[in-house]
């Protein structure tokens, strides 16, 4: 991005000194001084802890007594731990359901908003407002809105004689319900997509119209490719975040850190929830750290895979430079 590789037309006898050869001591000094807090933060709250959790994952550690080396035992235990397997299933189901639906729905809404709509400000506010609602409040609202007997969601279903699901107590409905609750906050993503769609240069559409392109062709050949880098970024962010769902499930299904279940049949036992329970409910910090590292590696691999695959489908304007 930063490299401005301008092919020099005239052959210069003396190459321009690289910028650090012209650096002043004063600038270097203050440059480092100003980033000291941020670099310390990186060491103490990011880099250090990631390494520490790798080390901890090979130990058994309850904080009170010294950590005891157990080798790979924690990792071996993971694969035979039914609850861990359950938590993987639950999380994957959620990610698989939430990420595509959130991205597609947000993009569709943003496309509608990108037409020259009157009162766009009002619409934007309506759609965006739920995404600022605190997660605990959102969980509390939906617990009652989704109440099978007295909630307003099931009321019309009952009136029309349709089956009225027990959203938050039927194990099969729990994940879809949580996805639904999260989708209430999709306004965030809508605004991001809206900004990127609006940012596509009008001249591209004009040129396409001259060539007789219809709405679908314009969408397929201009809008989609021109916004693909933002779609890609949102995809990554959403995947990373939804692998770590915790709060909503905790508020709705867990009464205390050591509670032994998360929803009927552990249907809301998300990965991070189970990790949290091991660390802060049972003080199994070594075991929880091994879970953390598995999650970390999976997310990194996935991110890498997405980055790798993006060459095929993401268009960057700077390409070829």
């Amino acid at each position, binding site marked *: 991005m*930063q490299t401005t590789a301008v092919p020099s037309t005239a052959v210069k006898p003396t190459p321009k000194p690289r910028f650090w050869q012209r*650096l002043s001591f*004063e*600038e*270097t000094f*203050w*440059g480092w001084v*100003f980033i000291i*807090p*941020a*670099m310390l933060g*990186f060491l103490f*709250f*990011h880099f*250090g*802890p*990631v390494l*520490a*959790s790798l080390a*901890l994952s090979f130990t058994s550690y309850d*904080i009170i007594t010294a950590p005891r080396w157990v080798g790979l035992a924690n990792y071996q235990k993971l694969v035979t731990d039914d609850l861990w397997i359950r938590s993987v299933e639950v999380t994957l189901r959620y990610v698989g359901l939430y990420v595509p639906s959130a991205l597609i729905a947000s993009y569709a*809404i943003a496309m*509608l908003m990108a037409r020259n*709509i009157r009162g766009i400000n009002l619409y*934007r506010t*309506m759609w*965006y*407002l*739920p995404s*600022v*609602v*605190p*997660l*605990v409040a959102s969980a*509390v609202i*939906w617990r009652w809105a989704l109440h099978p007997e*007295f*909630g307003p969601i099931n*009321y019309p279903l009952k*009136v029309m004689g349709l089956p009225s699901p027990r959203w938050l107590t039927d194990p099969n409905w729990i994940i879809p319900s949580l996805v639904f609750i999260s989708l*209430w906050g999709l306004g965030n993503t809508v*605004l*991001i997509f809206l900004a990127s769609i609006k940012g596509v240069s009008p001249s591209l559409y004009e040129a396409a119209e001259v060539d007789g392109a219809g*709405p679908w062709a314009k969408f397929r050949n201009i809008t989609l490719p021109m916004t693909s880098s*933002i779609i890609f970024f949102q995809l*990554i962010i959403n995947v990373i975040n939804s*692998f*770590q769902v915790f709060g909503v499930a905790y*508020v709705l299904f867990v*009464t205390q850190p050591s509670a032994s279940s998360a929803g009927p049949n552990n249907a809301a036992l998300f*990965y991070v929830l189970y*990790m949290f329970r091991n*660390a*802060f409910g049972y003080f199994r*910090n070594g075991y*929880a*750290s091994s879970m*953390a590292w598995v*999650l970390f590696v999976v*997310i990194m691999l996935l991110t890498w895979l997405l980055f790798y695959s993006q060459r095929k489908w993401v268009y960057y304007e700077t390409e070829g430079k």
Partner: protein
Amino acid sequence: MGMKLQTQIGRFFAYLVLTLGGIAMLTPFFWLISSSLKAPHEIYQFPPVWIPDPPRWENYAEVFQYVPVFRYLSNTLLITVLATTGIVFSSSLAAYSFARLRFRGRDAMFAVILSTLMLPFAATMIPVYILFVKLGWVGTFAPLIVPSWFGGPITIFLLRQFFRTIPMELEDAARIDGAGRPRIFLTIILPLSRAALTVVVVLSLLHNWNDFMAPLIYLQKRDLYTLALGLNALQYLEGGRDWTHYVMVMATMMVAPVVIAYFLAQRAFVEGIVLTGLKG
């Protein structure tokens, strides 16, 4: 002509979806406020009651008898204000350095900071907790405030982008007058960046006000609870009473400031979202 009709239908469809969907998005707010004004029996009524009759405004007064709302509020405000001050201060310093000072290793250090954006929170949670246990800070507000004084990738990135747009001439002129970097930062860069700083402040206020997981980990005692923890705990309060309408009152009191803040600083909210979402 057919083309025109097609766009007409398209527009109608857009308005229809956006309006109906928008109303649907706002309905839970209405449900929340309505439930907060209900008598306990109205909560358990079929068909659901939308407009409580009469609205029980006294719910709002009563909740203060059972829940130390002011305590929760002052805890939340204390954490939010101190953490926000910290993140703005530390991030803007770093962002200034990354944006405008030239030194060896700068871009590498910036990349290092940015890389933490991709780092899952879960991967660092346990060792950071242990660190705070060893420091004796668990059960105090420190774990929720101190990390903010060491910068954050999103805020640094955002401010750096903005600082880069400030003309270099301003800084050069001040340097000729003999101003040092700290003074330039305080008297030129910060005052010119009010818009960007507002965005960062808004994002941080929102994050700290809404945060649930970190307070849950670090604040076990009830008198240290934030509003989010207090609201969660209220759901499970025993005592043979039905608390649901009070839960709704407290949820309303937690949501209202955020909604009001949105209307006051709409631009900062929208810009913050868009800027953090657009580029990785």
